């Protein structure tokens, strides 16, 4: 049976800041200065770009709106290798792995955007991978490796086939592009058709190798921000010059700024970049959960928890990168479930504390009185389901945990992966659309 899980998202009430107002203006001004004569035009273009961007799903329940003060989760990718579900060392990814990864992302309510795609199947073209993505999820697909204008035109035809028409494509674009400077040509094709793009025009030389030594990285964070911000402004200007008011989002990807994945500097960068995006009125896609750890372990969780919290608490609209290890080089199904749990924690945190008469519950406190118990109160029954509930945590007694074989988060995630992949059915594309996609892939020959 087909299941359509609505995406789980939360309004973001908190706004963590790392730059004061003066510092924010100073970084922005330095970026404009770096752009020289084009600076003023770039700023104007950014301010004229739409402040909300729709990332459409195949169905209404899977639409994502960036710029609406909600935080959403995206997968990472594309990873060339996959950590087998049953364990063992990573191996080259196959088309079946891509199907599984997309289907799992489709089943997880926390995942809003299939970013990447999550894995790059060995021997397959980008278009063939995209066709598999469209079949394996009805959620939005955000491409990160699209580069040529020819490929972009083929993707556009595929997107029209999925959306139904060019008009519907503009209303609920099923695909978008998030990339560096070398994708500007492809981005222009997308922008003309109304497909959202997020580009950093000048990635500023050395991007950090995944897991690289931070001592190899360049200079101060302030300087990295200036260069990155200038790159986004330049790209935005180029796109807006092609198509005024084209949907454009700010990419806050530490890797594109040359920062080590999962480092404190990466977390700080995301907070600051999100502030800079807000300063010029652009929605933000943060690529944060890119742990350098090789296993879904303590280190992976620490890195991704900080990455997700810093971007979400700062107000980033999308936090992508879930499900990858080794700096984005390996996809792990268990890691995707575990990262979804991290997102869920953070979504509850950024929702903040509601303060009103109902939540203060003065009458209830008085009624319960000193030494009493709130468990039997109507107010408790009414609100107890608001309490966040984990899927992967063990909160039982030590002896019970030992008796159950010391099962941890990884084992619980494995069980959830197996359950989802056994039971979840994706909304079918339909034979006609499937055939169209196959034809476009074959004709493109890319």
């Amino acid at each position, binding site marked *: 049976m087909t299941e359509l899980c609505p995406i789980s998202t939360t309004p973001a009430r908190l706004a963590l800041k790392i730059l004061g107002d003066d510092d924010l203006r100073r970084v922005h001004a330095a970026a404009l200065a770096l752009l020289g004569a084009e600076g003023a035009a770039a700023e104007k273009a950014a301010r004229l770009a739409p402040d909300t961007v729709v990332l459409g799903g195949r169905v209404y329940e899977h639409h994502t709106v960036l710029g609406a003060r909600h935080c959403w989760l995206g997968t990472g990718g594309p990873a060339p290798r996959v950590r087998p579900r049953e364990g063992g060392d990573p191996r080259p990814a196959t088309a079946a792995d891509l199907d599984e990864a997309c289907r799992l992302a489709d089943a997880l309510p926390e995942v809003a955007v299939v970013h990447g795609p999550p894995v790059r199947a060995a021997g397959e073209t980008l278009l063939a991978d995209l066709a598999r993505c469209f079949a394996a999820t009805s959620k939005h697909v955000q491409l990160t490796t699209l580069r040529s204008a020819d490929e972009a035109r083929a993707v556009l035809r595929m997107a029209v086939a999925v959306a139904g028409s060019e008009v519907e494509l503009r209303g609920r674009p099923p695909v978008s592009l998030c990339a560096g400077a070398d994708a500007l040509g492809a981005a222009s094709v997308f922008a003309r058709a109304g497909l959202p793009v997020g580009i950093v025009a*000048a990635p500023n030389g050395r991007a950090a190798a995944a897991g690289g030594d931070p001592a190899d990285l360049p200079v101060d964070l302030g*300087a990295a921000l*200036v260069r990155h911000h200038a790159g986004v402004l330049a790209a935005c200007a180029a796109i807006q010059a092609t198509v005024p008011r084209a949907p454009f989002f700010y990419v806050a990807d530490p890797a594109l700024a040359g920062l080590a994945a999962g480092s404190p500097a990466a977390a700080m960068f995301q907070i600051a970049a999100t502030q800079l995006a807000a300063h010029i009125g652009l929605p933000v896609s943060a690529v944060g959960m890119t742990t350098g750890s090789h296993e879904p372990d*303590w280190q992976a969780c620490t*890195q991704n928890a900080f990455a997700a919290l810093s971007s979400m608490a700062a107000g980033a609209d999308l936090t992508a990168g879930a499900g990858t290890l080794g700096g984005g080089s390996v996809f792990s199904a268990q890691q995707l479930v575990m990262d979804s749990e991290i997102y869920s924690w953070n979504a509850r945190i950024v929702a903040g504390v*509601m303060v009103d008469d109902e939540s203060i519950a003065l009458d209830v406190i008085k009624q319960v009185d*000193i*030494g009493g118990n709130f*468990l039997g109160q109507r107010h408790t029954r009414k609100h107890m389901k608001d309490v966040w509930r984990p899927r992967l945590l*063990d909160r039982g007694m030590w002896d019970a945990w030992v008796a159950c074989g010391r099962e941890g988060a990884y084992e619980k995630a494995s069980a959830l992966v197996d359950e989802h992949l056994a039971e979840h059915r994706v909304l079918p594309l339909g034979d006609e659309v499937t055939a169209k996609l196959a034809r476009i892939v074959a004709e493109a020959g890319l």
Partner: protein
Amino acid sequence: MTTRINPIAPRLKWDVLNPSELERIHEATLEIVEDVGIRFPSDRALTVLEQNGCEVDRATQVAKLPRALVMEAVAKAPREYLLAGRDPAADMLIDGKHCYLSNDGSGVFVFDHKTGEKRPSTKQDAATSARFVDALPNISFYWGPVVTSQDVPPATKALHDAEAVFTNTSKHFQTVTTVGEKPARYVVEMAAAIAGGLDKLRERPILSFMQCAVDPLGHDGPNLEANLVAAEHGLASGFMPMPLAAGTGPATLAGNLVVQNAEALSGVVLLQLAFPGSPCFFAGAPSVIDLKTGGYTGGSPEDYLLAAASTQLAHFYGIPMAMGTMATGAKEPGWQAAIDDSLSTFASVMSSADMMNGAGLLNGSKILSYPHMVMETEIYSIVQKVAGGIEVSDETLALDVIKKVGPNGTYLAEKHTRAHMKEIWRPNVWDRTPYDTWLREGRKGALHKATAIADDILANYRPEPLPEDVVKDLRAIVARADKELAGA
């Protein structure tokens, strides 16, 4: 002067409550302490409150605190004070600008990382844990003990704990197991023996006290009396409410904050009425009920929101906050511990909690693991770096360098890079090697590295010893207490 501790001076600020929300919770708190009151099951405490104009019911042991009196008392509390180390290089100035991490406390088991099994803790474990904490610069003070002495008479456990701690760390000691007036006086006597007398202890307080409250809206008698002894001698003290939303507090977070605030505030009012100007602090470890078991969650997103909001409330009154931080519910230092510890530390630091308690225990503050404590200090250092913020100046913006290097150049050879590269954070236990290297070196992850660091400290670290005559004095005080309180 060199310092042996490494507090965080956060430049980032994260307000969970806005000013009008803070005001609403404050007003609701005043209504509760004035109309419902708080239970103070101690004649000494009730007398103090009665003499200062509170309406006291001796039968129920409930005191109603007029709002004007509350605010008047709170205003007497010092905004800034010293928590001294025996070694001045471990002094902590509680000034609202620094966050100091302690270990966690009151555990009852030790996890043997060589066998994977746990065992009940002993006085020797309290001593070893103090020596271990003394070695870690990211842990500024010793709270607890981490694990209690369970092989000594229960009536004098706190004194044996204190003896083990005082002789194995020269950092500040905040006791959480000293309850009742007599044990408190003995512990103060021990601290005075080290400091060189009660007056010297008042000048350089190497000891402070923390007690739990009894939720909802009550205190424990022996806890009150112990903190009154602390305040009498100018030692800092505070009360730690732990209301459990949906159990001992309302299911909604704002209501839970009211209960917690009423308890912490009422404790401070008592201390200030009894000994005006005595150093005091709010404390808290608020949480929500685990709906599956009815128990303590040991980490949830609500906990961190409550922690940040409680800290804002303490600072609203100008009172320092000691916030329950880390203290994961996980059974081992793995994924679950990582998320608990990372997010809770982030919340405490971003809200500028003055003291954070603390590192080292698993399973809801029950089981001590030394490698786990080392891993938690790594989390602390990450948060420290992020909380330090981004400096924006001509030097850090480096516009000239960016222009010189150009779009596809490298910064590696630049003088500016050499001047600043050492500011980049470097991990102690994270692994950043490429996959093949990691494989070749035996898949050594954070736990492996942390275990090696822990083993090295346990084998080799020696704290600054107490003078032998002071050690003898402490032993004599404990023996006297054993005789009087435990009949030993």
